[in-house]
């Protein structure tokens, strides 16, 4: 795929992935054929900053986990009231990374 297109994608999406994955993504995108370009654009990546906001305000109800697609964990979080809020606090710190992880999984199917 076009270097320009790859760079465009990376500029727009750098925050959505962990730094150590960016190099790998760049490589794979270069080698990928153009037909997948459209499909990649339809992917719905969750921004870590938005997720963090959701976690701070509605983390006690597990909404942040539901947002990034972790339905099972979301239910567990909801049922235990954010693990007596301990889990809710822990998630404030790890939810951004979890969001990046989920984004990477979504992208992986095309890489």
């Amino acid at each position: 795929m076009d270097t320009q297109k790859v760079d465009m994608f990376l500029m727009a999406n750098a925050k959505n992935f962990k730094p150590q994955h960016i190099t790998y993504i760049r490589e794979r995108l270069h080698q990928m054929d153009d037909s997948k370009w459209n499909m990649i654009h339809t992917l719905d990546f969750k921004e870590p900053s938005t997720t963090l906001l959701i976690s701070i305000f509605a983390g006690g109800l597990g909404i942040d986990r539901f947002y990034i697609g972790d339905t099972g964990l979301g239910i567990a979080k909801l049922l235990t009231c954010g693990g007596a809020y301990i889990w809710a606090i822990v998630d404030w710190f790890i939810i951004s990374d979890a969001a990046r992880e989920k984004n990477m999984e979504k992208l992986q199917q095309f890489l």
Partner: protein
Amino acid sequence: MKKDRLYLLLSLGLLGGYAYIAYSFCNPEAHVTACFFKSVTGIPCPACGNTRSVLAFLRGDLYPALLINPLGVVMAMLMALLPVWIVYDTVAKKETLYYFYHKAEKTIALKPVAIIFALLIVINWIWIIKKGL
């Protein structure tokens, strides 16, 4: 999520849950409101009354347990079932729980199921607030 990580998380959660229930069981007078949500906003959260419900369930009062918070009965059943399932999977070297977890996640993520589920939780929550837990 990898299988080992899921089982480890579940085991830790179950241990914590059992410890908490055992503590509440042995100290009925020590009523500690574990819910931050309630301390901060004054409104009970959707999981309010779970401990009381599980304790009632342990005493054998199924109907009162349901009345306090139906989710508590769900929790009690999960806490009883999951350790057995995890041990079975570990001993038999199978992945049945892991597989079931992923299927359940996919099912609940479907729009109609998710909406029904969310509605049930909200209705239960309104009921909890009306009960004044």
